[in-house]
Structures are given as structure tokens and as C-alpha cells.
């Protein structure tokens, strides 16, 4: 679990967040996401450059910054020997809530993160997903102005990940401003209003999920051919037509031809007309936007992280 050792430099990363916004910081391992979060949460002092949170400078006014933020990390920072409730109450006290406030707030949060039934068990008996939820809960003991979630679902299985997403969405609905880092495109797509893709400490793309997808010009047209023997012939026709923005790709197993198009519906009509004129029967067509995966691959030349599951 060591990911320091080489500290990733941020290369002139310029980043701004609006109130109430969910910003997704997306990038592969070692892209500088955690470094960015550590600087903004005052855990790491920047060697150059400045950063402010809610108007407070992270170096000069670090204490005030800490009064504005909540942080839940990649490695669930909860105490294993204490119970879930004790963890939350302690954090509440350290946020300088009174004893009674800490108690009642801890109870509310345990309910919200659906841990109320395991509240008094030591955390060491919790599953990976329960620990993450508790970690998230700890960052909410004091309603933060800005919440930072550093890879909140890395290593979780798909079901637990979806539960976690729901918990995060519930919080966002309460109006918290959230910065989320992730290496999963799906997660950014699912949760973030705005996505910043970073790689090697520098910004490589920014926008809403749709805007980013639009950066890959055009759509993807998929045509499934009914009779397999017509497949190559159909591909040839599309190539000869010359009006599409990529060479057709043939998938023999699925009997499908995939081609990038610029004019969307118009190109779809052209393609279908070509098939019809040559008496090639079409089983199914699909016109879709490229996925964020495609954007990522296009911009970085790297395949995005695959979902890995933690044995726990």
C-alpha cells in the first residue's frame, strides 16, 4: 500500500471549483490526483504556487482551511480498535462539537451510512465497504463547506461501489461542494458535474462528461449484418463510399461493422441506403456517443484502469 516514494509534481495545474459543484479529478495511478488533494487539504505544503479553499490560503491560513473541509481518503483512515460510533464521536469532538452534539450527530450519520446496526462493534470486524462508509461518515461529522474524496471506491467490489455512490449522491443532494478523485471513468461519469482529466500532474482535458465525449469528433455507428456471408461485402461498400471518418472495423463474431461518423443521422441513412441497394439485410443498427474510455485513450494513449476487486 505504498504510493508515496515518488512524489508526483503538479505541473501548473490550474483548478477552480464553484460552490455546490461536484468536480471529478480523473487520471491514472500516479497522475497527481492525491498530490492535488493533499495540497488542498493542507496535508502537503506546495513547494511553489498557491491554492485557496473558500478564500483561505492553504499555507498561510491552513487552520481556517481545515475548518472548511472534510476529507475521506483512499485508505480508510478509521481506527480499527474503536467501534464505529467511537470513531465518529471522537472526530466530532475534534471538530469541537460538544459531547452531546457529537453523540447525536454520530447517531444520525451512522443511520445515513447504514452502519447503525454495527455501530458498537470494533471497526476491525467491518468489511472493506463498511470501513469506507465510516471514513466518509467521519468527514461529515461537521458539515464541511468542501468535501474531498480521494479515490473513494478504489478496490471495492461492484456492488459495494454502487452503495458508496449512492451514499455520495445523498450527500451531494444536501448541497455539499465535492471534489472527487478517481481512476474510474465510470465513476466520474456517474458522479461528477465537471471532469478534469489529469495525467503526469498536468491538465489534459476539462468539461462535463458530454463535452469530453464530444471532443472525440462524431459518433460511432454500428451495423449488425443478418447474413454472415455478406459481412465483408458490406464493409467494402462502406469503405468505397469514402464518406465516413474512419475505416470500418469488422467484428466477425458479432457480425457487426463499426465505423466512426461525423454527420450522425445523415451518415446512418447513407449507410443503410448502401446496404439496401446491394440487398444486404441489416439486423440492427446503433448510433452512439464514444465512451469516456475512448476519450481517455485518445488523449493519453493509455487504457484506463480496469475495475479491480479487493479480497476482503
Amino acid at each position, binding site marked *: 500500500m505504498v504510493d*508515496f516514494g515518488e512524489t508526483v509534481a503538479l505541473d501548473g495545474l490550474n483548478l477552480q471549483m464553484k460552490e455546490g459543484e461536484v468536480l471529478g479529478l480523473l487520471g491514472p495511478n500516479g497522475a497527481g490526483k492525491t498530490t492535488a488533494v*493533499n495540497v488542498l*487539504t*493542507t*496535508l*502537503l*505544503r506546495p513547494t511553489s504556487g498557491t491554492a485557496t479553499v473558500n478564500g483561505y490560503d492553504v499555507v498561510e491560513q491552513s*487552520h481556517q482551511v*481545515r*475548518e472548511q*473541509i*472534510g*476529507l475521506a*481518503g483512499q*485508505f*480508510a*483512515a*478509521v*481506527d*480499527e*480498535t*474503536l467501534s464505529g460510533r*467511537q470513531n465518529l464521536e*471522537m*472526530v466530532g*469532538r*475534534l*471538530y*469541537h462539537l460538544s459531547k452531546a452534539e457529537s453523540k447525536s450527530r454520530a447517531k444520525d450519520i451512522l443511520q445515513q451510512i447504514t452502519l447503525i446496526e454495527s455501530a458498537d462493534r*470494533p471497526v476491525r470486524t467491518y468489511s472493506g465497504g463498511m470501513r469506507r462508509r465510516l471514513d466518509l461518515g*467521519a468527514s461529515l461529522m461537521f458539515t464541511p463547506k468542501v468535501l474531498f474524496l480521494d479515490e473513494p471506491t478504489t478496490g471495492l467490489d461492484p456492488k459495494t461501489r454502487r452503495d458508496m455512490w449512492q451514499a455520495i449522491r445523498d450527500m451531494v443532494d444536501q448541497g455539499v461542494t465535492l471534489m472527487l478523485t478517481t481512476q474510474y471513468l465510470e465513476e466520474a461519469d456517474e458522479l461528477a458535474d465537471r471532469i478534469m482529466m489529469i495525467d503526469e500532474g498536468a491538465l489534459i482535458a476539462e468539461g462535463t462528461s458530454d463535452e469530453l465525449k464530444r471532443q472525440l469528433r462524431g459518433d460511432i455507428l454500428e451495423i449488425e449484418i443478418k447474413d454472415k456471408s455478406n459481412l465483408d461485402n458490406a464493409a467494402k461498400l462502406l469503405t468505397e463510399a469514402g464518406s465516413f471518418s474512419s475505416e470500418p472495423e469488422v467484428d466477425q463474431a458479432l457480425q457487426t461493422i463499426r465505423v466512426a461518423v461525423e454527420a450522425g443521422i445523415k451518415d446512418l441513412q447513407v449507410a443503410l441506403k448502401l446496404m439496401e441497394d446491394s440487398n444486404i439485410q441489416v439486423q440492427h443498427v446503433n448510433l452512439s456517443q464514444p465512451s469516456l474510455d475512448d476519450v481517455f485513450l485518445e488523449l493519453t494513449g493509455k487504457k484506463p484502469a480496469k475495475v479491480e476487486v479487493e479480497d476482503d
Partner: protein
Amino acid sequence: MINALKWTLLDTLTVTKRNLIKYTRSPQLVIFATIQPVMFLLLFNYVFGGAIRLPEGIDNYIIFLLPGIIVQTVLFGSTQGVIAMNDDVNKGIIDRFRSLPMSRMAVVFARVLADSVRNAFVIFLMVVVGIMLGFEFVNGVGNGMIALLVALLFSFTFSWISVCIGLFAKDAETAQSAGFIWVFPLAFASSIFVPVDTMPSWLQGFAENQPVSLASDVVRGFAVTGETGDLVPLLLWLAGIVVVFMMLAVRLYNNSSR
């Protein structure tokens, strides 16, 4: 200013409470704090008791041994804080604390405070077992209590060194060995187990003046012999160590990040 002081105090107590709960729930630490020191006391008393030439006026080895072994036990006990501190760094607990708007001194103070509470309990236990083995406060019970306070102050001081090692060590293995190794020469080249004048002369200079010997002499002085002349040099040592390592600990805490 007053407010900052108040929150430093309250935050320290909150984290101390958490540290103490951890100690009570962690069996190996309880064993370290109870069975091991008692075992040492019994072994040294019965194994070495017959072989060691006692200073004049002390006719029972347990009376010589107990004050020294209390100092030895709290010295080794204070190194337990290295592992606890390092564990908090590696598990991200320190990052959590550092992202909270709490006092920047509370976490290290709480570590030292919790370890001192634990050591106070160990001192009490050792005295009870010692009395069962024939120990008595020859110099009077009042001075005996001063002796125990000096031992506690000594443990408080050395805990600061442990906190620094725990914050500085890169991983648990390093913390484990680095936290422990420097204690051995201090503990054994000292007046804890044997009178210093039985050692070779080249070693005596070190053994007489190092803080562990001074602590053991002063504790023994208040509890047994009445010779407490080393109190001032001891307090100077302890004050120096506390000032240096307290500042270092706060610095390391503020700059630590996984």
C-alpha cells in the same frame, strides 16, 4: 490565546482517551505492560540476587533492584509508543487528524500522556510485586512517593524520543527495531542492575553520567539510600531532552504525510 490553550488541552484529552481505549483492547500491549515487567523483576531478583555485590547498607537485593528495574521498565515501556505512533502514521489516522481543525500539538501530547498513564500503572504494579518480594521504602514512604514521581517524569521524557522515532520511521519494521535498539546500551551500561563501580573503568565515565543511571540513582536515593545529589543533573538532562524532542515531534507531525 486562552482559547487556543483550552482547545489544545481538550483535543489532547480526546486523543489520549482514544489511545488508552486502544491500549486496553490490545492484548499484547497489556501483556507487555504487566507480565513482562513482573517476569523481569522475578528473574533478576532470583537469578542475580545472590551474585551481585551490594553497596554498603543494603542487605537485600530486591531493595537495590526495585528502583532500578522500575526505571528500566518505564524506559522499555516508553518505546511501546514508537509502534503505536508509527501505526497511526501508516494507517492514515495521522492524515485524518491533520485534516481536522484541531490543535497541531494535541496528537503528540496525547501519545506521551497515554504512555505516561500506562507507565504509571506499571510502576504501581511493580511496587506491589516488589513489596511482596520484601522491598520496603527504607527512606520513608513520603520520599518513596517522590521517587515514583521521578520515575514517571523520566518515562514522560523518554516518551518524547519514542514519538519522534514513530513519526520518522518509514514503516513498522523500522519503527520496531529503531524504537528499541538505542535503549539497550542505556539500560545495561547503567546503575540499574549493578553498582557502576563494578564495571571496567572506561565504561564508568559513561555509565555514571548518562540519564538512565542518574534516574536510577535518584529514584533509588529517594526510595532507599537517601542520596539524592544527582537530582539536579538529572532534571537538567530531562529538561533538555523534553525541549529538543518535543519541538522535533511537533515539527515531524506537522510535516508528516504518507
